[in-house]
């Protein structure tokens, strides 16, 4: 199998987020970047597939702060190639990024019969919806999102995937390769790679950098304004020392006849 996987850095939402002066983007100085959580699962799933069925895993990302760490991490886990696409893509929206990636795949002849393209399913700032569907349309290949399990049948060159619905219900789908899927969760929790192993890989492996100019692709329309959620409907905060807070909590629970 020939696996191409697209990964991406996003703001860590556990940290404070600040809106920039243009009111249209986040203040980059405040962001702590991390690999999108579902991408971590996508990398894991790709490596699991390689371990099971062999083949080659290529990880591709747009240039972004700290993206090298994520790419080296994927190499340390077992990816064969890491590619960083440079250029002025910062303000491009998903449909434009999908064109860029699709064009790249076509230009490099990466879409062969045994190609499985993967990404994480749904990033936290995904205003235009899942990238895979825009790419699936550009490349005219089958597309399936929210996937939690993948098996390959080499005799028929097809994959069997589980797609998540609600209430724990899943659907099993059969898809011929080449195809594109969005990974929600890998079959196993993403493996941990010790720093020493990442340092070692940084000495031996290389991130391939390529430059793609943004001609002929439209950046897409930007949002008009970002804002912090209004404070209305906020919780009544219980303040004070832990002793005071727990006392109030017990009062509330007994008032509501829970205890």
């Amino acid at each position, binding site marked *: 199998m020939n696996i191409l996987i697209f990964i991406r850095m996003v703001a860590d939402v556990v940290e404070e987020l600040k*809106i920039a002066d243009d009111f249209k983007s986040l203040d980059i100085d405040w962001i702590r970047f991390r690999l999108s959580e579902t991408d971590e699962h996508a990398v894991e799933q790709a490596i699991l597939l390689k371990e099971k069925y062999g083949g080659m895993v290529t990880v591709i990302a747009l240039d972004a702060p700290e993206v090298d760490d994520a790419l080296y991490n994927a190499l340390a886990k077992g990816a064969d190639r890491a590619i960083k696409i440079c250029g002025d893509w910062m303000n491009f929206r998903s449909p434009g990024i999908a064109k860029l990636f699709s064009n790249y795949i076509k230009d490099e002849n990466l879409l062969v019969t045994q190609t499985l393209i993967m990404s994480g399913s749904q990033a936290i700032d995904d205003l235009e919806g899942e990238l895979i569907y825009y790419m699936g349309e550009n490349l005219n290949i089958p597309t399936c999102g929210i996937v939690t399990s993948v098996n390959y049948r080499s005799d028929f060159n097809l994959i069997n995937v589980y797609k998540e619905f609600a209430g724990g219900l899943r659907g099993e789908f059969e898809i011929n390769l080449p195809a594109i899927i969005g990974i*929600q969760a890998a079959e196993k929790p993403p493996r941990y790679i010790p720093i020493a192993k990442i340092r070692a890989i940084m000495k031996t492996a290389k991130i391939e950098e390529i430059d793609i100019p943004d001609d002929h692709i439209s950046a897409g329309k930007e949002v008009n304004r970002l804002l912090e959620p209004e404070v209305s409907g906020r*919780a009544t905060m219980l303040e004070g020392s832990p002793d005071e807070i727990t006392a109030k909590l017990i009062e509330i629970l007994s008032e509501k006849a829970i205890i």
Partner: protein
Amino acid sequence: MSKGILVLADHTKEVITDVSYEMLGIGRKLADSMNQPLYSLIIGDGAEKFASGFGIADKVFVVADKKIEIAIPELIVQILKKIVTENDISLILVAGTNISSGVGPLLAAKLDYRFIHFCKNLIYENGELMATSQLFGGKIFSETVLNDCKGIFSILPGSFPAEAGKASRFPEIIDIPHPDDGLKIKFKAFIEPEAGDVDVTKESILVSVGRGIGSSDNISIADELVEIIGGAVCASRPIIDQGWLPLSRQIGKSGMIVKPKLYMALGISGAPEHIEGMKDAELIIAVNKDSAAPIFNVAQYGICADIDDIVPMLIDKLKERK
């Protein structure tokens, strides 16, 4: 000017989801203020029996066919594209659920419309449409203005009143044949979740743990708490993905939808996918050390503190009380 607004009905296991009625309600409001008709589309085996409940729409398109076993975005989009083009529809509302996911971007790519995800609000004013979306796990909202009032919007469940989408009137129903165009993806089977040791949807008290619990071992303090106040322990997605608790305990979009008397959220940030599963709990109490955590926007009571500083002491005090 285009001629209509369409709501794609969302249903699972032969039940129309609440968000479908939410969409019909806001769809009706927009249709009236824009002076356009409101359409709805229901796809699925047995879809015709749902159509009578969709009287708030002027016309309901129905694709009922034994062959349609499950929501495949490609199939839904084939049907939608035809209806949208033939009726010159400008606005399409789809549910922000796993069932309808993928429909929006795929239709957007085919029609060259804009797709806007995670919508909490849609306002029509001065000839423009403004969509408010919830991003970054609920921490930031974005506003997008569409001057041409043309686009596809996915609506976060719980954003509008479902009651506004219900009417006793009977709609005009138009049967549409199955497109039979062939699909690139084949549905094989449903996989039902394994029955868990407890059914969290039936519990009246839930103590829910999120990533903030820190480790698998720490879940024991939630166990201890339910031993005293009753109920069961459940969790947000990362806890399940780590394998710390079984899937039957997951609350949210892909997990269970619960409405207990008490939902105590420990170390849960309150991402929209989690909120979808627990927003209708009677009483929500959240403990989180981040004062900006979105969970505080749905909780009645919030405690901005470390779980370790609050929960063990609460347990001790409850024990003393007994």
